[in-house]
């Protein structure tokens, strides 16, 4: 059984404790969470959770069923196999000594990132993109010296409601 990555988009009641039910389900049943992003939707009574997990086919089937069983879960959508847009934002605090500043700014330019903070010995770079773009910029900045990063977790949206498998 092959283990695959799945992006689950979960609509839930926007109520206290709901996230805890979702996270508790994953930890209690031994499923894994690679990333998690949560916020209110246009409807203030509903939140969207974008959750990335890795599992084989029977386990992903159980995950989706178990999620649906939770009283506060309105809808579970597995984007795998569908056409969707996926983004993640990263803030990167990179060591920026004078000899490297120009090189870093060139990279920022090439990757269409933004410098959002400048210090005597650092830049904070904001970048948004899919997994491969983020991996690429991190790889290039690493030799220069990354002090700290923070990621939002993946968010995703179907391109067209009807393209889903």
């Amino acid at each position, binding site marked *: 059984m092959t283990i695959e990555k799945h992006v689950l988009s979960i609509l839930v009641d926007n109520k206290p404790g709901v996230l805890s039910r979702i996270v508790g389900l994953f930890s209690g049943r031994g499923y894994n969470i690679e990333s998690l992003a949560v916020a209110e939707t246009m409807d203030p009574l509903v939140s969207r959770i974008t959750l990335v997990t890795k599992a084989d086919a029977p386990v992903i089937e159980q995950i989706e*069923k178990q999620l649906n069983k939770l*009283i506060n879960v309105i809808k579970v959508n597995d984007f795998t196999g569908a056409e969707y847009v996926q983004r993640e934002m990263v803030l990167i605090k990179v060591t920026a000594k004078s000899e490297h500043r120009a090189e870093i700014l060139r990279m920022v330019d090439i990757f269409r990132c933004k410098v959002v903070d400048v210090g005597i010995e650092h830049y904070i770079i904001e970048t948004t993109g899919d997994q491969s773009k983020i991996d690429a910029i991190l790889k290039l900045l690493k030799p220069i010296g990354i002090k700290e990063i923070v990621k939002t977790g993946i968010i995703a949206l179907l391109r067209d409601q009807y393209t889903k498998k």
Partner: protein
Amino acid sequence: MKLTGAQILMRALKEEGVDTIFGYPGGAVLDIYDELARTEMRHILVRHEQGAVHAADGYARAAGKIGVCLVTSGPGATNTVTGIASAYMDSIPIVIITGQVPTKLIGNDAFQEVDIVGITRPCTKHNYLVKNIEDLAKTIKEAFYIAGSGRPGPVLIDIPKDIVNELAEYISPKKVRLRSYNPTYNPNIKQLNKVVKLLKKAKKPVIFAGGGIILSKAHEELTEFARKTLIPVTASLMGLGGFPASDPLWLGMVGMHGTYRSNMAIGECDLLIAVGVRFDDRVAGRTDTFASNAEIVHIDIDPTSIQKNISVSVPVVGDCKITLNHLNNLIKNEDFGDISQKRKKWFDKINEWMNTMPLSYTQTDIIKPQYVVDKLYELTKGKAIITTEVGQNQMWAAQYYHFDEPNHFITSGGLGCMGFGLPAAIGAQVACPNKIVVDIAGDGSIQMNSQELATAVQYNLPINIVILNNQYLGMVRQWQELFYDKRYSSTGMEHAPDFVKLAEAYGAVGLRASKPEDVERVLSEGLSSKKTVIMEFVVEREESVYPMVPAGASITEMLLV
């Protein structure tokens, strides 16, 4: 007119048809208890909150309705957890109301504060913390709806003390509608047509019934289906009583301590129709060899039960009763040919298994525990409600007491919770005052909640507690005998109270049988008593439950006597 939170609670419970609550008062629920005393509500004061939940569980199962318990915050709430977990595993509809510290103190580590909603999140079907008085009536309505619908289960409502005293209009919706919760009751007919096709083809079919039959009250539909298609029936522990044990199609229980013929039949069948089951590991054993020659049809209301442990060929999501009804209608006009002729070889095989290895024991000059259950069955004519503790007593009860009706066997199946039987018997007797209720217990497990004897005596509940005393934690001892070279580590229980004196100390009747010839007399005397009775049977110390499938083995690989 505005009502207090306590008044709203009592009114909402009444509207749900609740007339009995099992509970234990405390600081955070003082106002609720004050209001309760002004109503008609019957309150059964238990001696430990765990007992309240098990009693509500026993009540729910015997009555076929939702059980209710009421406890205070903090320790009152945490004491309910085991009971809730047991009810959750067995899908029993109960509503647990816990008191909570006042809203402004929540999170302050206040006296008797505990995050019970957080603690019980994974062992309730759903739970609530009521933070606004306006939500109270609606929450109770929702809680009862969720507990009793779909796959039933426990729902907890945590009510802070200040909410109980606030005032609000009583506004409760007529009907509950939740956009995120809509159980599927009606099966997909396309799937049922596939079942009919398989039924026609099958040469060696078996029906495997579970607790879902009892929860959805589908026993009549199941019996009709089995008799029409002439298919032998086995059941999980939770399914006992879902099909009459006196019917010639009955195979007995399946699984770790199932009958030889049931387990063999599952191993060899070519069609397995599983209804209202979840293929627990105590049933399925080694999953890759379970019913490996069969097409498996799995009917259950909970989609997560399907394809979880066993992969099946025809999944059917739906209520057991509705689905079996559909199936019965579909097969009404189908021509199955001379079905008894077609099944002859299969029944011959099953009879052969039954004759090679029937359930058996040999009564010597020491009382055999099986003999006690046998006699109990005989004397009660199979009509008693049997609750059990957990372990050998539970398995002997399941093997030797034969159930013809649903809601008569009440046991902690999934959680396997020792201390369940006595409080569950209290709940069952409260629900069915005219029935004979018997708790089949071991000397170990009865000590886990023996304080509830006081409850039984206080409310004049004539429950019968049959203690099979082997001075061991028998089931664990059995495993140690079989798999740990007889190293009986911490399973000897030579130091127990004198159970006859214990009964008397509580104001109950205590009887003891030490010899086989005393068994019948003690049982008759106990059963005819109108009081709470302990009947202690000093049984063979190292008797074991057979057949036994070792953990992780195929269910056809049984250890036999």
